[in-house]
């Protein structure tokens, strides 16, 4: 018996609906069809009237979630792809994210973003948008890397009284399996040491955690011990865990699948440089996707985003600095 990352997301939604009658799901094709990725498979049957198909109207989907939340509901919005959330961007960043600040009334909505690249996805089905949402005050941005976190963090997202952008990586949907669902979990907002090491720290999140772990495995055979920090949430960013890791290793490489300008990797380096400059034995490094739209062909795509291969090269270079 094993459960995939995708099944964990479905199971978390089922449990949230089971435990709280104010939870409902709204998104394109989420009802009888079960969603483009089947993340809501059978939920419309199990919870009649609470899994609603939406017209192709991301702006109105988020707006309706905001209004429903005002009346005590806890909506989960499924964006069909993270890329399409941009047509609901105004409602997310200007309405939902500002509401508590303006009115003192919280806005408990969860927006699920099937994010990140897969082979053949191309420019408009591959984006990683955690940085742009993190830029706005009033949003929590989660980027689970494991089956356990996909499950427990989604449950936590629904229970939190603020808007949560839940970035679930499409590449992990089917590739990642666990033996069972977790019975206990680290709280969101805390980073996790995914692997301990003394020679350098690689900070990563979402699918890049697994690329980083592969690199740590590879370098271990050469006697190099890499510590891998899984951010879990990128906003809030657990600076303490990152700086503590750098204090142990003295070297920092930050890896993200998103575009390079600004963003999560830049933020991590800015904080370490500001708060832990004296801990660094070498200039901190970062690795991102190339500064172009995400390409379609697998050959181009593999070269566009960081992979275990390019991370290993960056890690070896950092050890020589």
């Amino acid at each position: 018996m094993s459960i995939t990352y995708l099944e964990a997301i479905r199971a978390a939604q089922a449990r949230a609906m089971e435990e709280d009658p104010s939870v409902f799901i709204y998104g394109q094709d989420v009802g009888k069809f079960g969603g483009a990725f089947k993340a809501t498979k059978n939920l419309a049957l199990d919870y009649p009237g609470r899994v609603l198909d939406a017209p192709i109207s991301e702006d109105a989907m988020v707006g309706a979630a905001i209004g429903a939340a005002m009346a005590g509901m806890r909506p989960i919005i499924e964006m069909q792809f993270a890329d399409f959330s941009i047509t609901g961007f105004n409602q997310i960043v200007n309405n939902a994210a500002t509401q508590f600040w303006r009115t003192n009334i919280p806005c408990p909505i969860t927006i699920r973003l099937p994010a990140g690249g897969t082979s053949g996805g191309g420019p408009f089905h591959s984006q990683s948008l955690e940085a742009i949402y993190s830029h706005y005050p009033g949003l929590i941005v989660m980027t689970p890397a494991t089956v356990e976190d996909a499950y427990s963090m989604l449950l936590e997202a629904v229970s939190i009284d603020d808007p949560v952008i839940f970035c679930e990586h499409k590449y992990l949907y089917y590739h990642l399996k666990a033996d069972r669902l977790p019975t206990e979990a680290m709280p969101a907002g805390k980073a996790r040491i995914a692997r301990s090491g003394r020679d350098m720290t690689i900070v990563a999140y979402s699918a890049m955690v697994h690329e980083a772990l592969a690199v740590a495995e590879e370098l271990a055979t050469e006697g190099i011990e890499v510590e891998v920090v899984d951010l879990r949430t990128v906003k809030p960013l657990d600076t303490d865990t990152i700086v503590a890791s750098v204090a142990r290793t003295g070297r920092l490489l930050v890896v993200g699948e998103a575009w390079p300008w600004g963003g999560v990797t830049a933020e991590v380096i800015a904080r370490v440089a500001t708060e832990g400059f004296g801990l660094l034995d070498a200039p901190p490094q970062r690795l991102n996707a190339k500064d172009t739209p995400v390409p379609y062909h697998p050959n181009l795509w593999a070269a566009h985003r960081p992979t275990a291969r390019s991370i290993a090269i960056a890690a070896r270079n950092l050890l020589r600095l």
Partner: protein
Amino acid sequence: MVQVVDEVSVFRDTYLKAYRGMLLARVLDDKFASLYRAGKIHGGVFLGRGQEALSAACGYCLRKGDIFAPLIRDAAGRIAFGEPIIEAIRTYLGSSLGIMRGREGNVHRGNPKNGYLPMISHLGAMISVVNGRLLADRFKGQRTTVGLSTIGEGATSTGSFHEAINQAAVEKLPLILVVANNQYAYSTPNERQFACEDLVDRALGYGVEGHSVQGNDLNKCLQVLQQAVGRAREGFGPQLVVAKLLRLCGHGEHDDASYVDPRLKSEAFAQDCIKLAEESMLRERWADRTQLDIWRQQAIMEVEETVARVQREPAPDPYGAEWQALSTPRMIDGGHENI
């Protein structure tokens, strides 16, 4: 006969109440304009001059428990929905005691707890929020509430408007969407805004019921809004109300509205709704000149006294402020102290 007399008297009472709300809104707006010119208001001032009849009718046709999402020219509707004028003044003057606590200004105010939704500047965005509030009521089995959102003709060009009215139609929600076609979106005239003959024709395309009204005629506005709100409440789905009128001021008080075509000003729909209502009341002998003067003086007194009170209230304190955009303290991002 007795029945008819009763109906007339009920309508007269509603009319007089609505007129007094319009008058209070006009006096309040005039005060905001003078405070603005005196440099007492931070940022812009946006008036509802010329739109009071329509706006008041919107507010008075709703009842407790209904949802109201007003826009910038709804001073009268906000009063009619039950907002005390002190909240308008506190928001304009940035009082820390106001519902927006100096965090938002001018017309960007509301109280979601009371079904009174605070607008954001992005036009059309609040319509789907009303839809969501109505969906929540449906989930809870409350099927008697309705939601009313007001917008201008300019907002009908937004994607948000299209998405939201279509969404309401698909879900058959009791939404009343009131479009005040005041001829100009800031300075842009209708012919640069849309190409259809009449915006109400769009109702058919969306599969909703449509209503037209001359927006400066309080009598007609009350009748049409009562009808539209009633249809929504009875389960006939979304209602699109398109009112024709003229904005009798600039977009904001910084704007002299010199672009308004002078020929428009002589049109019937361009006449001042307050004057028309007063003439109508005199004609019907529902009030005489003395009574009108008393009401005006009462409105002026109420506005002046409330402004004086708010001017003595504390401004927000930046050092004591809670700089938190989230309600969950453990999820607040730290680490910006040194950056």
